[in-house]
């Protein structure tokens, strides 16, 4: 079991006494801890390697295959796309996600376990930033690239939508009509526009995610998932459906509204998978 506790007085994390971090890893990560403090004999050309390499569990979730290593779960979905999902959100968005470092370890144990026991409470990360970006390794496969090309018409619409909001948002921010300055980041398999005045929550058009009205990639949504993770599943849907994505949303939303009384009713098929725990593109 690997667990982290946060001392709110020192604002630092401390390992529990029974910590058996793989490879004897430690919270006291040093400059070369990513190569077990042996930089002369070990290399990390991608920068994504870590001391945690041992696969400790395999499970399926719908059409996805999940490999559990250390406290991390890597989900292999269809169409050659993979998504690294840590038990806790990776707020860094700097490629360190999925490493099991920092606060992730607290609920990584729960994420990497198939048991139904109550999870360890997870204190917020010391390294949290509002980005809430996951570290998707999508983009590495040719099918993923084809998906993004297939999704390009939607992405163009999303970029136009996001850019208009970005410009208007800045004007509103400069004149004091908006508290937060709009931003643009890359993460969750998308270009992300934040604090967009035309969006109340989060939406995805192509490989573009737009947040506003207090929503953001690192904020929890109504489905208890991080909004960035939820929206990322819609980017994968777009990569499959391409130009059919928006009509699918419209039909699904209409079905949910008519049959379930809400756009987010269970009948809205595009929303079922993203609302699952962990979120995934589709429900099967």
């Amino acid at each position: 079991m690997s667990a982290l506790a946060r001392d709110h007085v020192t604002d630092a994390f401390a390992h529990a006494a029974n910590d058996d971090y793989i490879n004897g890893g430690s919270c006291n990560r040093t400059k070369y801890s990513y190569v077990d403090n042996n930089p002369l004999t070990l290399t990390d050309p991608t920068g994504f390697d870590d001391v945690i390499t041992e696969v400790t569990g395999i499970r399926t979730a719908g059409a996805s295959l999940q490999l559990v290593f250390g406290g991390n779960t890597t989900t292999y979905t269809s169409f050659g796309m993979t998504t690294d999902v840590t038990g806790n959100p990776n707020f860094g968005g700097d490629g360190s996600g999925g490493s099991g470092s920092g606060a992730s370890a607290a609920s990584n144990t729960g994420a990497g376990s198939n048991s139904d026991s109550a999870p360890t409470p997870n204190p917020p990360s010391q390294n949290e930033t509002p980005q809430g970006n996951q570290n998707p390794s999508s983009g590495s496969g040719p099918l993923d690239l084809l998906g993004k090309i297939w999704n390009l018409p939607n992405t163009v619409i999303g970029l136009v939508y996001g850019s208009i909001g970005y410009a208007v948002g800045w004007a509103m921010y400069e004149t004091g009509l908006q508290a937060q300055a709009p931003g643009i980041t890359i993460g969750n398999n998308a270009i992300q526009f934040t604090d967009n005045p035309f969006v109340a929550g989060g939406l995805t058009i192509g490989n573009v995610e737009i947040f506003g009205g207090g929503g953001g990639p690192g904020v929890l949504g109504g489905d208890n998932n991080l909004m960035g993770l939820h929206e990322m599943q819609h980017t994968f849907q777009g990569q499959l459906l391409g130009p059919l994505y928006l009509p699918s949303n419209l039909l699904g939303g209409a079905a949910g509204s008519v049959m379930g009384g809400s756009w987010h009713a269970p009948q809205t098929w595009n929303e079922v998978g993203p609302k699952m725990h962990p979120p995934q593109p589709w429900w099967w």
Partner: protein
Amino acid sequence: MNQLKCVRLSLLVLAALAACSSRLQLLLFNNSGDPVNVQLERKTMLIAAGQSAQFDYPGPNERWTLHISIGRCEIEYVVPSSLEHVPTRPYDVPLKAQLERDLSIFLLPAEAKTITDVGSLRSLQVEGFPLEAKSRTCR
């Protein structure tokens, strides 16, 4: 002017087409016996004893911290940044919780509509619930 209307309408249609997800809401019932002020980003919300109020669940911008004040005391809670083990509920239903007399905050079931006896809700308490005060400052 017509162009602006057209652009606005187009954006709204697009938003509907693309579907929105919304920020998690917290509906807090006050069973502390005293009126409570919840300090939000830009305003303070009063919850009378026995009443409830709904507001945004704190996020990274708030450092996952809920600030309330009762009488002369200011109390901070660190809320969980992951709720994946909390039972799912209809999307539009807020997360429900109840502030008790001992200042702990218990999760309530989605169907709760009023102050609830939390003694029978122990099994529902996951992800760090019931929340205990992280700090308490009294003047």
